C-alpha cells in the first residue's frame, strides 16, 4: 500500500544535541582516507579561519541519518525499512561542521510519491548549532522498493 501523502509537511521535534568531538572527526576522515590537515590539525584549521578542526563535507550525514530514523521508525507512516535504499543526497552548508559543535536536527517530510510501485520519500534535516545558527541542511531521498521487486 502506498505511503499516505498526508504526511508531507510533517515535522518532528528537534533531536537531542549531538556533540561533535575532534577524535570523531579524525576517525571519520581516516575512514574515508582523507588526509586533509583541516580535519586533524587545529593549527591548519585555524590557518583557514576556523576556530577548531572541521569535519569532511559528508560528515553531517552521520547525524542527519540518525535523526531521519524518526521518520523511518514512525509506526503511523509504516515505511518498510528492509526495502529502503538511499536514492540521492544533498547538503547545503552555511558553514562546515566543527569540533565543539552541539548540533540538533529538525527533520521534516518534504515529499512522498509513488513511482512504479516504489515509495519515494524526501526527508529534510535542518541542522542548527547550540546558538541556534544554521549549519547545514541535508536533503535525502529514500526509496522503498515495491514488495514484488525485492531483490532488485
Amino acid at each position: 500500500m502506498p505511503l499516505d501523502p498526508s504526511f508531507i509537511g510533517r515535522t518532528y521535534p528537534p533531536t537531542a544535541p549531538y556533540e561533535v568531538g575532534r577524535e570523531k572527526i579524525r576517525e571519520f576522515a581516516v575512514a574515508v582516507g582523507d588526509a586533509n590537515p583541516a580535519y586533524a590539525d587545529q593549527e591548519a584549521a585555524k590557518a583557514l579561519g576556523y576556530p577548531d578542526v572541521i569535519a569532511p563535507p559528508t560528515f553531517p550525514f552521520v547525524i542527519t541519518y540518525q535523526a531521519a530514523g524518526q521518520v523511518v521508525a514512525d509506526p503511523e507512516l509504516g515505511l518498510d525499512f528492509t526495502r529502503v535504499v538511499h536514492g540521492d543526497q544533498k547538503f547545503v552548508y552555511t558553514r562546515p561542521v566543527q569540533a565543539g559543535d552541539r548540533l540538533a536536527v529538525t527533520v521534516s517530510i518534504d515529499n512522498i510519491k509513488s513511482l512504479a510501485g516504489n515509495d519515494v520519500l524526501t526527508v529534510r534535516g535542518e541542522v542548527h548549532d547550540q546558538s541556534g545558527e544554521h549549519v547545514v541542511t541535508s536533503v535525502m531521498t529514500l526509496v522503498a522498493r515495491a514488495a514484488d521487486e525485492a531483490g532488485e
Partner: protein
Amino acid sequence: MAISFDEVEVGTELPAQSFPVTRATLVQYAGASGDFNPIHWNEKFALEVGLPDVIAHGMFTMAEAVRVVTDWVGDPGAVVEYGVRFTKPVPVPNDGVGAVIEVTGKVGALLEDRKVRVDLVATSGGQKVLGMSRAVVRLA
C-alpha cells in the same frame, strides 16, 4: 596555493583521482559512520537480498568523490553545496583487492560571489555509480 576564481573557466578540469575500496575499508567506514547495514559487510545477507556482492556505502562513494574538489581547493569548508544521485552500487569482492572508484571533475558553471559549480563523474568497473554529482565551491 588557493585556487583563484580568476584562474578558472567553464571546462577547467580538476585533477582526477582513484580511490581503492576493500572489505576492510567498508568495515572501518561502518564503524566511523554508524551505518551498520549488513549489505556493506555480510556477503550472505547481500546475496540474499539480491545484490551481486557486498556493496560500498553510497555515502562512502559520495565522500570519496568530493575529495577531488576539496583536494583541489584546499579548504574543505569552501564547499557550499554538494549533491549526488546513487545510480549503481559499487560491489566490493572479498579478494583482498576490492574495487576502485574513479572520479573526474570539471568546472560546469561560474556563479556569483566567486563560486563555481564542479560537475563530478564517479565510475567503478566501467559503470557510472553517481549521477547528477555536483558541488558548488567558493574560490579565493
